[in-house]
């Protein structure tokens, strides 16, 4: 029996994770981070919400049901500084951020980790769908058994040594199993609907959120240009676009046009035909290696360039300073700067990096 600190968001996944650990006989301690400021003024201004008071109350009710202690820590400042503001700035500068990857590295497996250590927990557990297999060398992180729920991609940037003291109780379960377990244990959140949106933008309207924090004077508007050099129009700000996007361009053209690139030097939106979105390679920076040592030689693996992307065979060549070049067997569509690329060997997450360019 170990002391396990469980990150509880108030949702069915983390609640069930806590319940499973409790059934397994562990000494379970619930932890919830409050990541958003819920003063009236803040709500009235229409800002987003993450771990809302209702969610925190749900986590407390579940903890009470499970008869485990539950503590709430306010880290809304860190969430604002490390996640929300960089998210807005990345969009502003014509990149497409991946806040969940950063949240895992900078919030969940850093702040929560520190709290768990302070509570002298032997492990930190979360409701991620991923599997950890102990190994004498370093922990081996695999995809969740239910590939449709797999969240390993979001974990590639977490320092590997953390996983030695992490548990993912849901890694071997399918979502239906989790719901069934929650119902069997009569957890109050068993039927709580799932959220698919970013936690701090519950209505999913990213543009509204970004523009609420980005005064018009700061928006990077500029020309819309065809790959062939033709000036097609004007756009209201790079933040509204992402590579591969077709809607919202405001163009009248017989040809189907897509965003091919966002040129930050000139604030230009470059558009072109679908074929122009294909690229056979990418450069990634700030690579982090999870289940293996940082490679020194070229490595054959499979690469995933966004969540829910089916990874493809690739040759990964280290180029020093935590940078790699990734060459795909076949061209990939809409490789997007600012997103993460994760490397796999079958179900094993090797590591990943941040897409810089193609």
């Amino acid at each position, binding site marked *: 029996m170990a002391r396990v600190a469980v990150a509880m968001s108030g949702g069915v996944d983390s609640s069930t994770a806590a319940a499973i650990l409790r059934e397994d006989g562990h000494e379970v301690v619930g*932890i919830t981070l409050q990541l958003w400021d819920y003063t009236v003024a803040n709500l009235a201004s229409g800002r987003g919400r993450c771990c809302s008071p209702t969610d*925190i109350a749900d986590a407390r009710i579940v903890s009470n049901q499970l008869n485990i*202690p539950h*503590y*709430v820590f*306010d880290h809304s400042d860190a969430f604002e500084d490390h996640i929300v503001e960089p998210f807005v700035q990345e969009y502003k500068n014509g990149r497409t951020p991946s806040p969940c990857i950063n949240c895992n590295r900078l919030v969940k497996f*850093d702040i929560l980790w*520190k709290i768990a250590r*302070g*509570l002298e927990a032997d492990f930190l557990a979360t409701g991620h769908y991923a599997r950890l297999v102990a190994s004498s060398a370093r922990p081996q992180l695999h995809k969740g058994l239910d590939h449709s729920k797999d969240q390993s991609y979001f974990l590639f940037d977490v320092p590997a040594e953390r996983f030695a003291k992490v548990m993912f109780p849901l890694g071997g379960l399918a979502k239906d199993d989790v719901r069934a377990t929650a119902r069997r244990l009569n957890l109050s959140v068993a039927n709580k609907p799932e959220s698919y949106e970013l936690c701090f933008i519950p209505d999913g309207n990213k543009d509204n959120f970004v523009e609420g924090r980005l005064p018009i004077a700061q928006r990077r508007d500029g020309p819309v240009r065809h790959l062939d050099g033709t000036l097609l129009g004007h756009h209201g700000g790079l933040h509204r676009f992402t590579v591969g996007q077709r809607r919202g361009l405001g163009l009248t053209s017989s040809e189907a046009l897509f965003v091919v690139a966002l040129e930050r030097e000139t604030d230009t939106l470059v558009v072109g035909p679908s074929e122009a979105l294909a690229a056979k390679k990418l450069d990634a920076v700030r690579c982090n290696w999870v289940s293996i040592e940082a490679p020194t030689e070229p490595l054959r693996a499979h690469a995933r360039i966004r969540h829910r992307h089916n990874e493809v065979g690739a040759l990964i060549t280290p180029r020093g300073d935590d940078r790699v070049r990734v060459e795909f067997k076949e061209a990939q569509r809409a490789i997007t700067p600012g997103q993460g690329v994760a490397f796999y060997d079958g179900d094993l997450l090797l590591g990943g990096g941040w897409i810089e360019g193609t």
Partner: protein
Amino acid sequence: MNTFPDVYLDYNASVPLCVEAINAMQPWLTGSVSNPSSVHRSGQRSRAAVERARGQVAKLLGCQPSAVIFTSGGTEANNMAIWGGLGWPPHGHLVVSSIEHPAVMEPAVALRDLGVEVTFVPANNQAVVTLEAVRAAISPNTRLISIMAANNEVGSLQPAEKIASIAHDFRALFHTDAVQAAPWTNLQPLALASDLLSLSSHKVAGPMGIGALYVRPGLDLPPFVRGGGQQGGRRGGTEATALIVGFGAACARTRAIRDESVARVAKLRDRLETTLLDSIGDARRNGGGSRLPNTCHMSFAHCDGNVLVARLDLDGVSASAGAACASGVAHASPVIDALSLPAEYRDGSLRLSLGYETTESDVNRAIHTIPCAVHAVRGAHLEVAR
């Protein structure tokens, strides 16, 4: 997890309900209790119980029973005093300290937002509001001064009676939030000096959800909660008979055992504090000078106070990092700001507050547990520091 019964050192957040209050309330939690305003005999019994309890609260304050208005708690009492003390509609200049409880601070901020002139008087680095600071804030237009009797976080006693006399020199009203001071100080001279004084039942071992505002006889205070004209038209709403009866019993008990408890608890607190300061490096005591005998407020460098409190709870010691707030999340408070702590101490506050029931063995357990907990939380802080 530990197998000992928990050590409760969070009396400033709430005092466990005393047996006297439980026994007194029991008959009023049955199905045959009526509205104290009803004409029939069942109503008459409720009325008599409410009025007896009003007398018990009045005795604690040394005032006449009609000066006691029951409210839903300390927060409502403070709201009633701050809003009502400025007349209706609110006008004139309001002076409050910057270390008031949110139940005073928030109404003051709301009034400021409505255009009322409000001055927030800073406290010194011992969390004490000095007479000089009050004198500097006051003006001929000042209508109400509100300064707490004792600070809830660090326990510093405020020169409330002297400030009351300054207020009266300027023909201003004086309100004091005596919620935290009530179990530990003789409130009679303070009530005599004040125009308005707030009490909370659960801070004196009565039930939660009930409190009182003392209103100096002759002072015409507009109601804050308007309704059916109860309590002389000063607070609408059917009196909560059971809660009021419990509150009354708790006040009687406080009066009976307060003085003998003060010296004993102060000794326990001092031993706890001295031993912890001796055994934990980079630790400091906050709020020196004259303070409540039960409160020990310390800060530890490089230590997350919120994690420390959680960790102590797992070890069977109930404490708090500051004031308890609605969400159960502690925030950096204006009181901590007033202390002007060095940066590395700012996140590492711990409040241990003792009560009448605190024993030698409770203090021994705390002395045994807290140093290790601080060590562990600091270790985690350094381990992950980038």
